[in-house]
C-alpha cells in the first residue's frame, strides 16, 4: 500500500475506505478485485453480494 494512504485520499479529494487483498496485477488480479468494485447504487446503501468475470473467447 502507499507509504501514506491518507496522503492520496487528501490529494484526490477521496475517502480512504480500507484495504483490499494483495491481488497483484494482470487479469486474475483484476478478477479478484471486482468484488471491491465501488460504484454504489445509492450513497452508503449498497453492498456487493456476488461477482464473476467473463473472459473473452
Amino acid at each position, binding site marked *: *500500500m*502507499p*507509504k501514506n*494512504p491518507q496522503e*492520496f*485520499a487528501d*490529494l*484526490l*479529494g*477521496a*475517502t*480512504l*475506505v*480500507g*484495504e*483490499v*487483498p*494483495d491481488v*497483484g*496485477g*494482470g*487479469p486474475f*488480479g*483484476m*478478477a479478484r*478485485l*471486482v*468484488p*471491491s*468494485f*465501488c*460504484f*454504489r*447504487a*445509492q*450513497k*452508503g*446503501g*449498497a*453492498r*456487493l*453480494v*456476488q*461477482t*464473476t*468475470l*467473463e*473472459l*473473452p473467447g
Partner: protein
Amino acid sequence: MAELAELFQAARNEATLLVLFIPSADREGNPLGKKEQKRWVRKALKLLGRRLRGATAFPRGWGVWRDDAQASRLVWDRPVLIQCFTNEESLRQQGGPLREFLVEIGTETNQGAVGFVIDRSFYEIGFPLEGE
C-alpha cells in the same frame, strides 16, 4: 526490486498499482450502453497513457450490488477494470488531472460513488443525490 531492475537492465521500475473502475450503469441501475462505457474506457486509457505512461483495460466483469437503502434491490453492473503500473511520485504530480477525470465520470454517468485502488488501499469519491 531495484536489484531485479538492475539484473534485467530495465529502464523503468514502477512499484505502485493504480486500478480504476469504469461502470456500465448509473446509480439507479440504468445501463450506460456498451458504446458509452467504451468511450469512458478510452478516455481513461488516454489519460493514463499520457500522464502515467500506460495502462491496460480488462474484459468486463459482472457484478451485482444489494442496495439496502432501496429495499435490498439488486443493482447489476458490468464494470471494466483498468490497471496502471506507476509510482507514488508520478501520482502526486498527476493528482489534479486524475481527480478531474474521476469527478467527471462520476458526475456525467450519475454514480453514487467512484472507486479506485492504489496498491492495497481502496478509495472512493462520493456524489450526493440531486437536491441533497
